[in-house]
């Protein structure tokens, strides 16, 4: 529909096309750019303090990356579908304390001799609570007709509020001590829980980019009316999308429990913004229909590398916000450029 430069009668147009298409290829490969940015960061931080280039730091970065990538990929899927999920950070804290309560009562009670069974039940509780909050999000969106921003803002407030009320603000300890023992690195810098997260992310990648689930998600995010006309049950798919996001946040909540050996109502607070940042830096469009899991994975890796890098460099980690803001600005600009260029081809 748009008049493209290739059809331009202007003889100079040919050159414009060559230049712009090279630019197009460059900026369209967001993952490549992110990888370069990440490598430059690692080199830069290592030059500032050689300790940065160590297995120990890699282990620290992965411990931060794993919970973030879980909620970020969940968030990516929501964003591809044209929605937004603000409740993920609150779900992290909420599922963390609920499962901590459950694990404490089991561990102090009938299952004192079976710590790993208690932990397994803890995962299950996180998964179920996460799915339930996701279901509530989708009900508010599909049937109460709230826009996703408001619907998930409601559950954000409800979950973080309930977490505080139930715990009176204090962390919930008393579960199996084996939790923290799982956090140290196992293979290279990877701990067992981190490896599980890697597997989960690979499964989600297949879901998004190789399966019908992903095709439906992209279709709805690009044009929900067309998707409905094409026979997709949009409401049902939206429900799945938000439940998946809740599930990922629940798993992140359990990951934090493993790291801290306790559930804290303040855990995860504000993580929705980190997740959205990872998604945007990863090249997804908040307007829906665009995004790659690999981009989000790298986006999350860059964010957590910045965190550890600033601490190791002795820079006030509050600078992270500024760095992240700059990265978002650059990524969003590339996204906007890609859109105008993309519309022309």
């Amino acid at each position, binding site marked *: 529909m748009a008049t493209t430069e290739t059809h331009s009668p202007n003889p100079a147009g040919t050159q414009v096309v060559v230049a712009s298409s090279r630019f197009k290829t460059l900026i369209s490969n967001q993952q490549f750019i992110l990888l370069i940015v990440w490598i430059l960061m690692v080199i830069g931080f290592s030059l500032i303090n050689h300790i940065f280039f160590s297995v120990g730091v890699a282990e620290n970065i992965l411990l931060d990356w794993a919970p973030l990538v879980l909620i970020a990929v969940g968030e990516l899927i929501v964003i591809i579908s044209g929605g937004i999920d603000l409740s993920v950070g609150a779900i992290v804290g909420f599922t963390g304390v609920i499962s901590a309560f459950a694990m404490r009562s089991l561990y102090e009670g009938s299952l004192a001799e079976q710590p790993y069974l208690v932990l397994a039940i803890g995962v299950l509780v996180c998964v179920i609570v996460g799915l339930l909050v996701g279901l509530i999000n989708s009900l508010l969106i599909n049937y109460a007709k709230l826009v996703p921003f408001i619907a998930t803002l409601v559950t954000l407030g409800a979950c973080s509020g309930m977490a505080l009320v139930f715990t009176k603000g204090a962390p919930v300890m008393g579960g199996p001590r084996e939790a923290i023992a799982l956090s140290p690195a196992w293979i290279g810098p990877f701990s067992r829980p981190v490896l599980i997260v890697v597997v989960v992310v690979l499964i989600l990648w297949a879901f998004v980019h190789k399966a019908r689930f992903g095709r439906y998600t992209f279709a709805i995010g690009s044009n929900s009316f067309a998707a409905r006309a094409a026979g997709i049950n949009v409401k049902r798919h939206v429900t799945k999308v938000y439940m998946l996001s809740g599930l990922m946040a629940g798993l992140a909540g359990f990951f934090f429990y493993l790291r*801290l050996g306790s559930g804290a109502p303040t855990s995860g607070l504000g993580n929705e913004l980190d997740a959205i940042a990872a998604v945007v830096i990863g090249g997804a469009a908040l307007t829906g229909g665009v995004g790659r899991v690999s981009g989000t994975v790298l986006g999350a890796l860059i964010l957590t590398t910045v965190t550890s890098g600033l601490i190791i460099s002795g820079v006030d980690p509050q600078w992270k916000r500024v760095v992240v803001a700059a990265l978002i600005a650059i990524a969003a600009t590339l996204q906007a450029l890609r859109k105008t260029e993309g519309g022309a081809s």
Partner: protein
Amino acid sequence: MFGTSKASRGLIVAAGAATLLLAACSSSSSSSTTSSAAASSAAATSASASSSASGSAACDVTGKKVAFVMGAESDPFFQAMKVGAAAEAQAKGMELIWQGDAKEYSPATQIPVVDQVLAQKPDALVLIPTDPKALQPSVAKAKAAGVIVANVDTRVENLDDVLTFITGDNADGGAKAAESLAGAIGYKDGTKYKVVVGLSSETATTNVARLEGFKKAIADKYPGIEIVDVAYSQSKPEVANTNINNWLTKYPDLNGIFAIDGTNAQGAAAALQAKGLTGKVALVGYDAYPDNVKLVKDGVITSLIAQVPADEAKQAIDAVADALCGNTAGIQKEVVIPNFTIDKNTTEADLKQYTYVA
């Protein structure tokens, strides 16, 4: 957890929605507590203790209404305070009106609560102002209505209308933390030691006063100790955990950690356990929440600096009871209660007294 009750109360403000504003909230909602922190605390405690004894004997305050407006119901610090207030009010036969926002530590929610409480015509008001300036008019209003006003924990800027201001001594707590840490790492002059400090907020006065007290004690008594890094966790244990994890990698020879509140202690304790450094790196925490006390017994946390919120509340009730009898001679304008150090050697009796009510 949130040892610095102030930081966490500020934090709770943010819980509803605008999470990025977190730091800003805690800064605005908590200020100027401990300028007078250096006051001789032992004298202060004994003075107010004796005044309460004489006061209760002097006249009958049975049936008098005392309103207690605190910061945020959700904070265990205030829960502990509530226990102390309720017990003392009951002992004196006074009626206690306990009020405050469910979870928000902010003047915006607190001012209407004060108005509503004053409408119930109490004889006295014990107020924990969430902001030194914003609550000043509320204090004036109470005074004008003939209500005796006391401040606990935090204060309004101008104490003219306030009978007494009773607070824990955070600078003293910081100094006690330095002493305890120095003891735990076997400090000797001439040797160099590296310690880090995990904080929650750059502005909450509890954090600032504790850090100042800590730094001053180190400068005065332990010049060999160097504070190599400080960082802020915004009251999130996982952020505190990330900070400590990276510090432990950056400083393989780290000697000690001062975790300035419960959140930081939680994150630091997890990091030491995961890296197998329990007992090798000393960890001094703050606030005697039951779970923290358990970690002291397990040897993960070396020591805890505890405040005495229940005692603060009790002394405030005693002071207003005395004033209601017209017996104001023994009441001091400012009472600073010293902190208490809990470690492995603390007796069960002391643990019982100082552990907060969960």
